[in-house]
Every structure is written in C-alpha cells, then in structure tokens.
C-alpha cells in the first residue's frame, strides 16, 4: 500500500510528528505563529485517548507539561518568542529536575510583540542561554516540512533518552510553508520511550548516578514514591547544599549531553568536500543557501553548505575543521548575529567569518548570499 502523503504546513507536520512519537499530552497557550501545532493536536489527541489542555498562560502551560511528563506522558508545548521567554524559568526547572518534555519555539520577528507574523531566527541564543543557571540544552532546527515531522520525533526521542527538555527551533517560514509530507509507517522511525526503574520501589532514587549518567525516571502513580524539586539535591531527590553533591549533580547534568555528542549532533553537509567558502545556515535560511551554492558552483566558485540540524549543543568540532579547511565561513541568519558568535568562537580566527543578518521580516535571498561570497573571496 502506498504511504500516506499529505500537503501540510510545518506546524501541522510538527503536530503529526509528535503523534508518531507517541505524544499523548499537549499543554499550551495561543501565540502566533505557533498556533497550528495546538489546533491540530486539540483535534487529534483525543482521538488517540491523549489529552489537550489550553492553559491560562505560557508559564502554566509549561508547568502542566512538566506535571504530565512526571506521570509518564510524552508531553509537548508549542509557543513563539515572547511565550518562550515566559517559559524560561520552568525550562530551568525541567533541566535540573531532569524531566523529559518537548517545547517548540516558532521564532518570530523582534523583541516583545515585535512583528508577530514576521519570520526570524532571533531566539537562537535564547534556546541555549534563556533560562538561569548552568545547564545543558538540546535544540533542533529543521528546514522542511518532512524534516520537521522527523525532527519532532527525534526531539521526543532525545528528551526521553536523556531525560531532559528538548527544544525545537522552527522559524516562521518553515512553520507556515506548505510541502508534501510522507508519513513514515509505524516502526519506520525509531521511537524511544524513557527507561523505567528496575529496582524495588523502596530502593528507588530518582537521581542515583550509580545507575548511570541518566538515572531511570519512575512515573508518578506507577508504584514508586519519590520527591521532585527544583532545588539542588542528592540522589534521593531531597534538597542538599553539600558542595560536593551540588557540584556532582550540576556536572553530571551537563556531561550527559556533552559526553554523547555523537548521538545528539546531526547536520547536513552539502558540497563541502572541496569547499573554499562554507555557508553556515540552518532552518529556512539554508534553503536560500543551498540555492546559492548551486549558482556559485555553476560559476566555478567552490562553495558548500554546513547545515546544523542540532543547533545546540553547537557542533564545535566540525565547524573548527571547516574553519581550517575554508577561506571563509559565511553565516546568513534572520537575526543580527546569533549563531555567528559560535562560529567565530570556534573558528578562532582560522578563516574569515562573515555574517549576513536580516531582521526586516523578509527572508534572506540567494542573491544576497551570492553577492557576499563574491565580496569575501
């Protein structure tokens, strides 16, 4: 039988990807341009016995998300920039309490209300540094509707596997463009469920690192009684201010991501083998960059593209290699300089790093990129 193919928006693809991953809980608060994620799930979740709740505000949505996730639910929340700002405290809570959940941020223009229907990629640093305290972050930035579907599944998988919140960094162009999406068959994409504890309930400690870097998380109501808090804590989940325990907890929660980069990082390399100029581009901007590479190649200019799909943690090692290989790395972004900071930091002056920023609500077009490449070379 032929696979199901549907023409749909990125936001709709996100909602369907979530369902494929086993999402059975959505809590959110309406904000443009993310609303279709909620709208689709309000319709689809009850069909599969899942729950949809529209909360009273953005903070409440994230609180409900974490509460539901603690009962074992695969929980999703979708928002846009200003909503994400409100969620940041509880994102930090989910980091320190190590609660698996997925939050979609469909980025829009400007700080505050800015340009609510205009595209941007201006929350890229917020995805890493928005919440307080030292923590690791995983954020994914897909570039097509098909990829949004698949990366939403991967976001859930990473959340469940690493027991932490994972962010999907869409931009408004990807979220609202329509493309055909081929639905994978059940089993075609890997779906990971969190590990349940095997110890007896009386021996269970939710943060016991003797059980590995990522201790299993018991669901509330599954027979295990334990304590969850946003305070620094010992293995049993109870608050501690003992220096060595706090230090170990903080470091473990960052190490569980940084020690598994091979599993977490994902990127696309396009025409990079002999590239003298590398376009570092992600999300919708990468589509203009790909077009630019093709045009430049026609003129004999050795251009290529590096497209991080996992944007956090930052793909340091590969970008450093590309900086050594290329004459220049050019970063087109719909912001005034966010991921280019990381490229500059990692390149350490090994090549020219140039930025193309645009914040007027218009996409970066291939001509702009081509012109800059010719200027730089």
């Amino acid at each position, binding site marked *: 039988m032929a696979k199901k193919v549907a023409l749909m928006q990125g936001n709709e693809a996100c909602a369907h990807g979530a369902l494929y991953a086993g999402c*059975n809980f959505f*809590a959110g608060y309406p904000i443009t341009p993310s609303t279709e994620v909620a709208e689709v799930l309000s*319709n689809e979740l009850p069909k599969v016995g899942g729950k949809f709740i529209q*909360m009273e505000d953005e903070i409440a949505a994230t609180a409900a998300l974490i*509460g539901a996730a603690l*009962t074992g*639910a695969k929980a999703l929340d979708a928002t846009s920039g200003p909503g994400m700002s409100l969620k940041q405290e509880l994102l930090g809570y989910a980091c320190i309490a190590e609660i698996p959940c997925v939050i979609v941020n469909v980025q829009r223009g400007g700080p505050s209300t800015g340009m609510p229907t205009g595209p941007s990629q201006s929350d890229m640093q917020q995805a890493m540094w928005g919440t307080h305290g030292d923590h690791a972050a995983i954020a994914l930035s897909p570039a097509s509707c098909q990829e949004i579907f698949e990366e939403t599944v991967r976001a859930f998988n990473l959340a469940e596997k690493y027991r932490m919140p994972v962010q999907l960094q869409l931009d408004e162009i990807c979220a609202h463009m329509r493309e055909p999406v081929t639905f994978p068959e059940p089993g075609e994409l890997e779906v990971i469920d969190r590990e349940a504890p095997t110890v007896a309930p009386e021996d269970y400690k939710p943060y016991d690192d003797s059980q590995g870097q990522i201790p299993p998380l018991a669901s509330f109501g599954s027979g295990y009684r334990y304590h969850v808090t946003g305070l620094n804590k010992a293995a049993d989940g109870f608050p501690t201010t003992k220096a060595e325990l706090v230090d170990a907890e903080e470091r473990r929660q960052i190490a569980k991501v940084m020690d598994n980069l091979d599993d977490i990082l994902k990127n696309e390399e396009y025409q990079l083998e002999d590239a003298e100029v590398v376009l570092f581009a992600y999300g919708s901007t990468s589509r203009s960059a790909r077009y630019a590479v093709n045009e430049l190649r026609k003129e004999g200019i050795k251009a290529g593209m590096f497209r991080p799909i996992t944007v956090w943690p930052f793909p340091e090692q590969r970008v450093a290699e590309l900086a050594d290989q290329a004459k220049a790395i050019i970063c087109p972004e719909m912001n005034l300089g966010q991921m280019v900071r990381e490229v500059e930091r990692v390149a350490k002056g090994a090549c020219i790093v140039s930025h193309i920023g645009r914040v007027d609500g218009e996409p970066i077009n291939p001509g702009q990129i081509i012109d800059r490449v010719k200027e730089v070379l």
Partner: protein
Amino acid sequence: MAYDYEKSIRPGKLPHIWCPGCGHGIVMKGLIRAMDACELDLKNTAVVSGIGCASRLPGYLDACTLHTAHGRAAAFATGVKMAKPEMTVLVVGGDGDGTAIGGNHFIHACRRNIDITYIVMNNSIYGMTGGQFSPCTPTGAMASTTPYGNPDPTFDISKLAIGAGATFVARGTAFHATQIDKLIAEGIRHKGTAVIEILDDCPTTYGRRNKFRSVVDMMKRLKDIAVPVAAAAKMTPEQLEGKVLTGVLFKEERPEYTEQYTQVIAKAQGA
C-alpha cells in the same frame, strides 16, 4: 493510643524546617489525618507545592511529592491530574505563593473545577524571604517592605476561590487543630476543585513586627477572630466586625474537568 503520624511521614526526613510556633506543622498533622481518613493510597497520591515555607510540606510525606517553582503549584497539579486522573492530587502552599505570583493559576484551577484539593496556609506574610507583605497581609500591618504600615488592601482567599468557581471552599485555623482534618477530608472527597484556607501564624516574621509578644498571643488571635458559619448566622453585623467565618463556606456540584474531558475523548472517537 496516640495517633500514628509516622506511617505517612518519609523515614529520616524529620525534623522539619519550620520555626518554633509556626502553624504549618499543625496543618501537616491535620492533612495526614485527613489522608488517612480518606484511605488514600500514597503511591497514587501526588502532593504538589510551589515555593516558600509551607511549600516544603510535601517532602515530609511518603507520597509522590512535587516541590515546584514559586506560584506554579496549581498549574503543575493540573498537568498531573489531567494526565493521570486516577491519582489523588493535593496542593499545599502559602498565601503569597498561591494568590500573588500564583494568583492566575489559582483562579483558573477553580474555574476548571479540576479535582484537586488546594490547602492554602494563610499566615499573611512571606516567611521564607524574611517577612515581606503578601496579598493577605492586613492593611496597616507591618512587614519588612511596609515600614510605614501596609498600604495594600487584602485578599479574602475563600471569597476569591468561590468567585473563581471552586466548588468546595472551607476555612479553618491552626488554633482549631482538630477541625482541620475534617475540612481537608471533606475537600478530598469532593469531586472538583476544593480550596481549604487555613489561617496560620508566623511568629518569626509577622508576629514580632506586629506586637504579638508570643506564639500564644498569635494563637489567641486565631481563636478570637474565628466564628463558625452556624454561629455567625445568629450574629449581627456589628458582632461580626473583625471576625472570620470558619467551616464549610461553599459547596456545589458541577461537572469536574477531567470527567468532562473523557466526554471530549468519546466524541473525538465517534461515540
């Protein structure tokens, strides 16, 4: 025989952090008796709190306990209950946590009539942060941020809950210790949002700034201002001046939120 509180307390977690004379321990004992009376299975009971002195209570209970972020307890609890309606979900916290930063979540939990029991320990002050005024600090009272007396009007938590749609609202005091369990138990048994306001005392940050010379003075105040609902019905407005009604203040039957959602699921599935 003395009541055995320890069967509900997590081994090794006492003594608690509360100051001598604080009423939170009295409330915790009442809550334990209530949970016992309702025969709650602690494996299927989530006790959720926000931040502050009162919000440390769940940690002492041998249940599924969730100490969250300032003000957000009701929203976390909503997520737990919505995702797993078969769990009993209790929220405990202070007046500032519940009605200032958490005010929005508090009223919307009441509006939904989701089956959670919210116990507000109203000691009229922010205790853990050192005695700043809360929305429940009496006008004119002294707090660390009202050096000239509190200029703000105060919230009546029970009235707020009734107005917002809670279907069971009761009020007790830390002085009337033997009544607390009955009010909480009735709240737990009630299907829908139950709010139990317990007038509490904070001798450390409220009492000493407001000329209560001892814990006994603070407890005496609770004793003096409390008037049971039935007694109040026979009193004149003059006699009720400065008094606070206690007992079950409001009760009605209205569809519960998670039950309503099962109908949404049935509809979506073509029933």
